[in-house]
């Protein structure tokens, strides 16, 4: 999902682009923007600061800005394969959308007179206006999806027939059967179940309800039924057996219901319907109290003895939950769960019958719209793979990313960085207005409100993935689908040239610790001076964009400083400071550069002449001494230091301060060294085989070094080393036969007892076993694998193992002769 992307696009007023981005992953944007219970908002990091972004409302806003009839229909190449989908709810519609885009010919079979499943039959008009739903469905039909309404599988069409005319079937029939109350009198007239009631009202049928309505249950269906009954002019009471905290319905829904004058009676459960003739007249209830948690984790309601009471009722609406109706699938052998839902493979949604997939409420029982849509998408992928003959399960599916945990420090940092700003509230119809008819309650954001809300996004993901750059890049150089991959390469030699990173100057609190924007590093100045840099070569202060006139350089930041754990000289800084001083003067003759230095290290051909030129021709003033402090004074940066040649403290009011940060090992250098089995020093620079005689080789055969990964060095030196390493590799590869060190282990088979302790200690598995002619098992060294460490020699208890060049006799002779 590219949530941050469309939030960013809404914030800048690119509503059409935002909508298109939402459409990439969500085939029902207008619907989701209204009815989704937005689990995404629960993981939004803004929630740690104040309240999460109103993601769903902004999605609705984007959808409301678009006339769906004008959205372009993509070109689809049909592949001639046919897929049947049973049920046109969110799961079925999503699967149809995806499959149609992939080129399949999709037909949805819908039992009711209109498409939409629970979106149409279950969700009242005031939450999801029918023309909005129709719009999203129309678009899916335009993609070539056929929706055959009034077609109940098992009656008009047999499931077997579907299977013979379609290559794959997706069952997404939802859960529309009401659960029974299980109390006496339940069959009386005047009782209509919640989903049946909602379906009838939503499909425009005439439903007669009385003036006093009692709704039983605490879920969203109960609330919906109550609010619909209220709009039909009844007074409504909801009876729920637990307390408000345990109510499964959405909190905002409960509050809205109460605002509309619906009474909720907590801790009560019906025990009997008292009838008068055929008709329900009263409902007898029992008070409850909360006990220990039950299997669902909620406290179990326990009846209070003798607390019976009755409520007068004209219409009773039980809304206790729904189960799937799977009558159509009987006799086919589809596997069912004990709860009466379909059993599928969780990862692929395949049922036990080949070619039949299932998802949504029919598998999970009543759940959220977005979960059904996710199931639809999953099923579409599986069906696509199935029909292409690919394996259903792929590695990609298993690596679903869980949202990352946010650490305490991160939360504290977020709170410090972002001031509180509550989410923008959407306008709603007044509650007395609402109950008059079925007008949409939530009125949507205005343009300004939406942008204000979208701007609250913290952009915690850095790149928002709005994909605008992808559209603009004519060379098609931006690819969002690329993924990390592991590649195995077999090579004969490795040249390590991992370079360096610049020292992080923030540890120097006295230089501002990275807090002053106009204290920059040499590398940053290099970018400012560069014609291809961010400013096109114009040198400006980062804080206010003015041209600096007084520039102070501070050398040896993170070099030659034992207190900061960097006692070595970074070697290149003296020269680049001189270069920068010259270039700054060339850019703007009014610039005056000051350079604080310890020594000017300008060793090398023409180097010292260059440094002299910076002083003599370009007027750079060199001051010998360390800078002790840099602080802000108005628009200036005050640089305090000492000129140790005149023995006086100096203070310079600078416009820009450039820290000549040193070079240090690249990230992960030590880990790489361990992987390659090469040595590294205390600063994590790699160690050459010999500092003078073998400067680009390592002690591990076939691994070579070049450049600043060995230690600070400049470009000419790195280039020379690169060439040297290449020549060394070429020399290695030019040989037909490789010679190895003759210092390898040997084992005297006459003395070997066959204990094979040596095979256990050998790090290179270079010791094999051999059967001697007299039937003994002895160890034998594989000389090409042996590296000559001698571990086996020290481990051998019988003196059978020995190491050429370092034999026991040779070493003993050395010890013996030491003081002779």
């Amino acid at each position, binding site marked *: 999902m590219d949530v941050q992307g469309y939030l960013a696009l809404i914030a800048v007023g690119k509503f059409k682009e935002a909508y298109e981005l939402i459409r990439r992953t969500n085939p029902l944007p207008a619907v989701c923007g209204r009815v989704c219970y937005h689990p995404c908002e629960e993981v939004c990091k803004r929630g740690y600061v104040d309240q999460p972004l109103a993601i769903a409302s902004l999605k609705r806003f984007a959808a409301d800005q678009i006339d769906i009839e004008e959205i372009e229909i993509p070109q689809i190449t049909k592949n001639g394969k046919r897929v049947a989908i049973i049920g046109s709810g969110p799961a079925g519609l999503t699967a149809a959308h995806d499959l149609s885009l992939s080129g399949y010919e999709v037909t949805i079979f819908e039992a009711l007179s209109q498409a939409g499943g629970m979106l149409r039959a279950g969700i009242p008009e005031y939450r999801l206006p029918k023309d909005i739903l129709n719009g999203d469905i129309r678009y899916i039909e335009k993609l070539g999806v056929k929706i055959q309404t009034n077609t109940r599988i098992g009656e008009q069409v047999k499931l077997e027939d579907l299977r013979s005319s379609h290559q794959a079937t997706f069952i997404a029939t939802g859960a529309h059967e009401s659960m029974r109350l299980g109390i006496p009198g339940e069959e009386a007239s005047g009782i209509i179940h919640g989903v049946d009631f909602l379906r009838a009202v939503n499909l425009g049928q005439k439903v007669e309800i009385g003036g006093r309505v009692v709704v039983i249950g605490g879920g969203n269906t109960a609330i919906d039924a109550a609010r619909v009954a209220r709009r039909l002019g009844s007074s409504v009471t909801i009876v729920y057996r637990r307390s408000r905290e345990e109510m499964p319905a959405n909190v905002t829904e409960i509050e809205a219901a109460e605002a509309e004058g619906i009474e909720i009676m907590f801790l009560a459960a019906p025990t009997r319907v008292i009838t008068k003739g055929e008709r329900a007249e009263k409902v007898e209830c029992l008070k409850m109290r909360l006990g220990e948690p039950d299997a669902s984790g909620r406290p179990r309601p326990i009846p209070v003895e003798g607390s019976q009471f009755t409520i007068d009722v004209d219409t009773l609406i039980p809304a206790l939950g729904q189960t799937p109706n799977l009558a159509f699938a009987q006799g086919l052998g589809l596997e069912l769960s004990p709860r009466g839902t379909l059993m599928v493979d969780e990862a692929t949604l395949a049922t036990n019958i080949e070619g039949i997939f299932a998802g949504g409420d029919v598998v999970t029982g009543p759940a959220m719209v977005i979960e059904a849509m996710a199931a639809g998408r999953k099923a579409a992928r599986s069906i696509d793979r199935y029909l292409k003959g690919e394996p259903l399960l792929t590695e990609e599916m298993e690596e679903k990313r869980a949202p990352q945990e946010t650490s305490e420090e991160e939360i504290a940092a977020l709170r410090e960085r972002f001031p509180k700003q509550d989410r923008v509230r959407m306008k709603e119809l007044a509650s007395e207005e609402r109950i008059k008819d079925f007008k949409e309650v939530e009125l949507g954001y205005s343009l300004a409100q939406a942008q204000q809300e979208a701007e609250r996004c913290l952009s915690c993901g850095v790149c928002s993935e709005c994909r605008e750059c992808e559209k603009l890049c004519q060379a098609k150089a931006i690819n969002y689908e690329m993924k990390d991959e592991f590649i195995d390469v077999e090579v004969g030699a490795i040249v390590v040239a991992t370079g360096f990173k610049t020292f992080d100057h923030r540890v120097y609190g006295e230089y501002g610790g990275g807090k002053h924007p106009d204290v920059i590093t040499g590398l940053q100045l290099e970018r400012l001076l560069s014609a291809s840099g961010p400013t096109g070569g114009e040198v400006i202060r980062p804080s206010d964009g003015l041209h600096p006139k007084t520039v102070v350089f501070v050398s040896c930041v993170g070099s030659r400083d034992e207190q900061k754990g960097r006692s070595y000289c970074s070697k290149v800084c003296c020269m680049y400071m001189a270069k920068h001083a010259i270039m700054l003067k060339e850019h703007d003759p009014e610039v005056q550069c000051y350079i604080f230095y310890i020594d000017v290290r300008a060793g090398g051909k023409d180097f010292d002449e260059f440094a002299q030129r910076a002083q003599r021709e370009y007027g750079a003033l060199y001051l010998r001494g360390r800078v002790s402090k840099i602080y802000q004074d108005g628009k200036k940066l005050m640089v305090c230091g000492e000129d140790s040649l005149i023995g006086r403290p100096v203070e310079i009011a600078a416009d820009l301060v450039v820290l000549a940060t040193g070079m240090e090992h690249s990230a992960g250098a030590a880990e790489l060294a*361990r992987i390659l*089995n090469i*040595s*590294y*020093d*205390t600063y994590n620079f790699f*160690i050459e085989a*010999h*500092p*003078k005689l073998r400067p680009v080789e390592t*002690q*591990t055969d076939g691994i070579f070094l070049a450049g600043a990964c060995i230690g600070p060095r400049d470009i000419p030196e790195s280039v020379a080393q690169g060439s040297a390493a290449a020549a060394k590799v070429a020399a290695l590869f030019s040989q037909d036969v490789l010679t190895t060190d003759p*210092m390898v282990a040997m084992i005297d088979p006459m003395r070997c007892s066959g204990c094979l302790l040596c095979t256990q*200690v050998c*790090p*290179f598995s270079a010791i094999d076993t051999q059967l001697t002619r007299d039937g003994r098992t002895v160890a034998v060294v594989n000389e090409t694998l042996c*590296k*000559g*460490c*001698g*571990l086996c*020699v*020290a*481990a051998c208890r019988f003196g059978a193992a020995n*190491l050429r060049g*370092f034999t*026991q006799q040779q*070493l*003993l002779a*050395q*010890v*013996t002769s*030491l*003081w002779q």
Partner: protein
Amino acid sequence: MAIGYQPKVVGFLCNWCSYAGADMAGTSRITYPPNIRIIRVPCSGRIDPLLVVKGFQLGADGVLIAGCHPGDCHYVEGNYYTRRRFALLRPFLDYLGIEKERFRIEWVSASEGKRFSQVVSSFTEELLRLEPRELVPERATL
């Protein structure tokens, strides 16, 4: 302390780290006491305890074993064997009447020329504080 006494130290140095470290001390012109006689071995894991005992038997005042830092062995795990093997030798040296200060194991990497010099200096100073070893004359040589 005997006048003019100079302790004799046998140093077994692994080729890749400690011997290179000693080399580094040399190329960096860092000095260290000349009391040490260095024997190069491919890996500290090659060092047979017999060589250590032999050194003491022949009159060495101290024996130093130096290898790569744990985790950095050129042969992956040789120095782990060294560490365990000589932990076992220590009580045996004690049994032979050789003070525990006379035997040291140190980790010196190829870049630690300075550290090598410090190790040899401090070991030599420590040996100078101890009395010279009394050797049983007839067993002094093999």
